[in-house]
């Protein structure tokens, strides 16, 4: 019987190698897989390209991963945070490169990459500085930019429920980028608030089908990023 569960967050992320591209689910703190990120810090893989909508808060989770020096490049849409100087400092000092991508283009690049679409045209960013160096093409009298599909080596994902086959559900707006990131990664590593038996998730309610998931670990009581920050916590 197929069973994608592994025993710990450490084991879950142990397959991540130096130089990997890692998609990290979440929009702000909602959906951020903090325990997997912290396990990746402990694991120590370096020279990573990280993909997330943002660049982390405080000195935990994604911000801590950047602070640890393991990230050499960020791909994101909104690398500003009211409560963290980790990315700004790393960026200004040249320790971390930034590829700035409009939020919808980032989501679509992931979805297309996952779907075997190597490139697509989008109206977003035409005539702006983010169009520089990109092919401009007219369809039916309107201008569009060519954007490339994005696939990655790994995804770190937080979900609500998972079954052993890897079927996932999410909680409210913690869903955000996670379903397309599961699709766009060669190896998708998931922390689930609850791992349930086969058949417990109604097939009509599955958001991410198991084919897009590789490794599952239960983290029943995940940390809340804003609470960690309010408590002045940092990782490690």
């Amino acid at each position: 019987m197929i069973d994608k569960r592994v025993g710990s967050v450490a084991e879950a992320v142990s397959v991540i190698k130096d130089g990997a591209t890692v998609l990290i689910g979440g929009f702000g703190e909602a959906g951020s897989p903090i325990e997997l990120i912290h396990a990746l810090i402990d694991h120590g893989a370096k020279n990573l390209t990280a993909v997330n909508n943002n660049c982390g808060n405080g000195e935990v989770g994604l911000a801590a991963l950047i602070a640890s020096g393991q990230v050499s490049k960020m791909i994101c849409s909104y690398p500003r945070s009211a409560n963290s100087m980790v990315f700004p400092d790393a960026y200004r000092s040249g320790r971390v490169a930034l590829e700035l991508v409009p939020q919808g283009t980032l989501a679509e690049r992931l979805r297309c990459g996952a779907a075997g679409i190597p490139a697509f045209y989008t109206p977003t960013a035409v005539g702006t500085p983010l169009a520089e160096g990109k092919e401009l093409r007219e369809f039916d009298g309107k201008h569009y930019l060519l954007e490339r599909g994005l696939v990655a080596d790994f995804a770190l994902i937080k979900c609500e429920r998972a079954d052993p086959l890897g079927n996932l559900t999410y909680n409210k707006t913690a869903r955000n980028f996670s379903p397309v990131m599961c699709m766009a990664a060669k190896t998708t590593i998931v922390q689930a608030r609850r791992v349930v038996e086969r058949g417990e998730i109604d097939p009509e309610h599955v958001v991410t089908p198991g084919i897009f998931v590789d490794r599952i670990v239960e983290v029943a009581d995940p940390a809340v990023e804003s609470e960690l920050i309010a408590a002045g916590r940092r990782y490690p």
Partner: protein
Amino acid sequence: MSASSRGWNRDQMAARAAADIPDGAYVNLGIGIPELVAEHVPPGRELIYHTENGLLGMGPPAAADRRDYELINAGKKPVTAIAGAAYFHHADSFAMIRGGHLDVCVLGALQVAQNGDLANWSTGETGAIPAVGGAMDLVAGVKTVFVITKHVTKTGEAKLVERCSFPLTGQGVVARVFTDLAVIDVTEKGFVLIETAPGISAGEVREQTAAPLYSR
């Protein structure tokens, strides 16, 4: 008395914009004054709010004791969901935006040009951390783009200009601008004055606008 303490205040600007959004519209509200639009919808109208992080049918901000850090808006503030809401992932959310399914978005602005160009994501300052979020997708896809902004900057510089000096968010995208002083349309010939705030003269609006301002 400066123009900014006369004219419309933040709530009045939001209310004036809300008045121009039709019943049943699907609406995305930007961070800041645009968020106030939801509090000023005229009686008898229902708008459905979209937040690009994956919720259609967003309700009011969450009460302090009912906050859920996994139910937030694009500004990352705790919100609520109405009966009849739907959650979806980011690619579907931006399909709604880019595909022209949203009727109206209301955004802030650094500058609006007379040809409808909008600059609202970066002052192009060196050393600043560039951050665009979903703004470029919204202006590229939403059917009607409204802007709410003070007419001039804190230092008195015009925000309605002949040509944006700041990096663009989109080209020729703005339909209507709601400022503390006036309501102004962007048309083929340029800015057209639709309405002034009580006690504000057309001449005063013209003075604060760094581009020709035509009468209707």
